[in-house]
């Protein structure tokens, strides 16, 4: 009987997939989806979907009854629920959406059914970099009557 040294089990790393996570058309899911990658839903989902920094695609077989928050949403299937996107929502021609939408941009194709309200939320302009306060003599700031100067005076005192 020969004894051979145990061979280490080879483990191959899973190939890295660049695509989105997919909920297939035979999957029914109830609950909360929270993700940090793009997601495609082609099955049935009920609950909440939150992908703040990512893109959600609701495929042609997708039926979603949920409150949805994502950076970007593409609807080809059916959605019932309120939707909030930071950048854009696209509602394709055979899609059906019932719910209120808050978004920066909306693209809706002819033939799509939409029932609900649309609020366009303008993206906030980037705040200018804080300018360091100029050093001022305490005496002159304290004697100034302008509100800006008073605020400066407050800063200096602090």
């Amino acid at each position, binding site marked *: 009987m020969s004894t051979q040294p145990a061979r280490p089990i080879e483990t191959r790393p899973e190939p890295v997939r660049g695509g989105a996570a997919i909920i297939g058309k035979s999957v029914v899911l109830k609950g909360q989806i929270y993700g940090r990658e793009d997601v495609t839903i082609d099955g049935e989902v009920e609950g909440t979907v939150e992908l703040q920094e990512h893109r959600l695609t609701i495929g042609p077989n997708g039926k979603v009854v949920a409150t949805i928050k994502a950076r970007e949403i593409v609807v080809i299937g059916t959605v019932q629920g309120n939707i909030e996107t930071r950048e854009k929502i696209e*509602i394709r021609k055979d899609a059906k959406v019932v719910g209120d939408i808050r978004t920066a941009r909306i*693209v*809706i194709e002819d033939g799509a059914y939409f*029932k*609900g*309200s*649309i609020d*366009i939320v303008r993206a906030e302009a980037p705040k200018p970099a804080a300018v360091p306060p100029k050093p001022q003599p305490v005496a002159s700031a304290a004697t100034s009557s302008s509100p800006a100067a008073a605020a400066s005076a407050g800063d200096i005192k602090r």
Partner: protein
Amino acid sequence: MSILDFAGASQATISFVTNYGHRLYSDDFVRQLDQVFGSPTALANGANFFENQANPILVSEFFNLALTFEDASFDGALVWDSLQFIASPLLQTVVAKLHRMLRPGASLFALFNTEERIENISTYAYRIQDHRTIQMTARSQRKPAQIFNNRSLEKLFQDFSSVKFFLTRDRLREVIVKR
């Protein structure tokens, strides 16, 4: 401002209204009428689309789907040509609901066909291209519940504070009603 649009969602109207900073509520009112009063189930008992509009069960079903807004929700309503496809007394109920849903001073915009002896009228998809242009894309021909004249329109909107008529091309009467 909050604007109610009965024409169904279109990119042009959405862009036009929201570019002014207004909120748009979009719905396809005629589609909802068809969905309830013109469904195969509703037509199966032999009553037609307009006769079904007097069926209390279907009317109740319709109001569960449509016009489900609180009082004084809107500053404007674009009802386009949809009121022509509603028979009395449902028509009066719909107009009373519109009156309640609009805020005082709000405006309602509607279109009515002017041809009196006509069996079917053209229906359109309406899109606001800009402040001078409404794009009308023909959808189908359908029978109106009734043809309105100025007097019947004044009676229909009698609870509103003012009604203005404008005759336009394409055999349409434009009506602007103030709440």
